[in-house]
C-alpha cells in the first residue's frame, strides 16, 4: 500500500513567487493534516481536512497560504506570494476517521526554500 506522498520533495523559489505543494494521502484516509517545520524548530500544525472540508485551519500563518482538497482526495497548499520566512519543511499526514496518534502517517515532506 502506498504511503503519504508529497510533491515536490524540494522547491527553491524567489521571494514574491508562487509555489504549490501537493499531498496525496493514503487511500481511504479522510483526515488530512498539514504541518510545517521552520529552521529546525518544532513541527507546527497548519490545518486539518476531513474529506474536502476544512475542520481546523487555526494554524495557518496568514492569508498568503491557501489549502484545498477538492473531492476529498489529494490536497494542495499554495503560498502566494512567498516570503523568506516561509522557508521550511512542509509535512502532510493522514489518518482514517476516528484514528488517534498511533495511526497518523506522515509524508516525507517538501523542503521549501524562499530566496
Amino acid at each position, binding site marked *: 500500500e502506498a504511503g503519504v506522498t508529497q510533491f515536490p520533495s524540494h522547491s527553491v523559489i524567489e521571494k514574491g513567487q508562487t509555489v504549490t505543494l501537493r499531498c496525496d494521502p493514503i487511500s481511504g484516509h479522510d483526515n488530512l*493534516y498539514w504541518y510545517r517545520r521552520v529552521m529546525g524548530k*518544532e513541527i507546527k500544525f497548519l490545518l486539518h481536512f476531513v474529506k474536502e472540508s476544512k475542520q481546523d485551519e487555526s494554524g495557518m500563518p496568514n492569508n498568503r497560504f491557501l489549502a484545498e482538497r477538492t473531492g476529498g482526495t489529494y490536497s494542495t497548499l499554495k503560498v502566494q506570494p512567498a516570503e523568506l520566512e516561509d522557508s521550511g519543511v512542509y509535512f502532510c499526514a493522514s489518518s482514517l476517521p476516528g484514528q488517534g*496518534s498511533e495511526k497518523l502517517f506522515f509524508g516525507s515532506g517538501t523542503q521549501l526554500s524562499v530566496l
Partner: protein
Amino acid sequence: DQQVKQNSPSLSVQEGRISILNCDYTNSMFDYFLWYKKYPAEGPTFLISISSIKDKNEDGRFTVFLNKSAKHLSLHIVPSQPGDSAVYFCAASEMGGYGQNFVFGPGTRLSVLP
C-alpha cells in the same frame, strides 16, 4: 512561547548503552504525550505514547516515563542501536492524541555510535 521543550538539540550515545531523551512542557492541560522518530528525508513516524493517567509505558526497547508534577517526560532506549540514530520529537495533546491538537517540541538528534 514554546509549550513543549526539548532542551538538548543533540545527544550521542555508545551502542548498547542507554539513551535518555528529555522533554518538558508548560501546559497543564496536556493529557496525552507522544514520541515520534524521524530519519533524514522521511516524515516522522510514531514511536510510543503515554496517557496522563499513567506514569510509564513500555514497548520493547523503548520506555516513556511521565512525571506530571514536574511536567516532564523522558524516553529511554535500552539498549541503543545504530539504527536508532534519528531526530526524536516529543509531542503533546490536550484532547487525547488527535493530529490537529498536537504540539511538537523542536526535536533531539540522537546519534548512536558503533
